[in-house]
């Protein structure tokens, strides 16, 4: 029942968003000119038609780490809720869990995985 409200809200928001998409088309003037839709490139002609080029990612590895830490967080969220009923046992459990993963973080740190994966000259 609670999630139905969320679904209704979602539907309403979709309608609002679609309104925003088409409102300029409805209200705005239409004065076609030759170069009005030319992509912005500081006033010079485009070099390539497509800007969707391949470029080196400096934080590719961080994406992988995000995944792992998010899974860790997913395990810890139930723990935070029931910690009150677990007592010392729960604390030790969590401490071990965090300790092992801190080791993982330290390993990544030592290996330089948390740094920007570029040479200095690329800045």
């Amino acid at each position, binding site marked *: 029942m609670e999630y139905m409200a969320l679904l209704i809200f979602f539907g309403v928001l979709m309608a609002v968003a679609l309104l925003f998409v088409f409102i300029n088309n409805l209200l705005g003037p239409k004065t076609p000119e030759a170069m009005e839709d030319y992509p912005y490139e500081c006033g010079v002609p485009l070099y390539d038609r497509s800007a969707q080029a391949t*470029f080196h990612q400096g934080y590719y590895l961080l994406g992988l780490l995000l995944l792992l830490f998010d899974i860790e967080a997913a395990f810890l969220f139930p723990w935070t809720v029931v910690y009150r009923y677990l007592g010392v046992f729960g604390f030790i459990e969590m401490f071990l869990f965090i300790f092992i*993963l801190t080791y993982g973080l330290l390993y990544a740190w030592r290996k330089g995985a948390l740094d920007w994966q570029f040479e200095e000259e690329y800045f």
Partner: protein
Amino acid sequence: MIQWLVFFLFSGIAVLSALGVVFLPNPIYVILALLSVLVSVAGLFFIAGAELVGAIQLLIYAVAVTVFYVFVLTAVPWEKAIKKDPFYRVEGLISFPLVLALYVEMVLVFLIGVSVSPKGQFRELITKFGNTEVVGAILFSKYFLAFELVSLVLLIGMIGAVIIGRKEAQTYEDHSS
């Protein structure tokens, strides 16, 4: 009644987008279709009353995994990616039996799981305490060893990710120098 309607809505979206993931040629459409699959599966979880799983599905799959794919997007050579002819035909043929085996396994696990799963024992508990509390209570008492092992698995995964990721960076340096 209305629950069934919403269920069919979400599952329909999920199936259609899953087909999109397989058949769409453009990688960015594939990622969008994947996002749609993940969100609608989260919606299915919510309908089934598994709030925690649904929310975590949104948090991990719909954000973390898909953002990672967005990164991959910029590493794809576009001229090759948009071409429609299949690149990995042989690999696809080889992997087909494996995929089939995986599906058979999934169906088996599902059927066995249905036959041995506790029949509604937790229903009252869940309505009384809430989804997250019940999951937490079971996870941190009965299955605490598995929980600790998960941390080890995650550690191994992290080390593997670092090693693989760094290797790539080193080859990049080799090329540039």
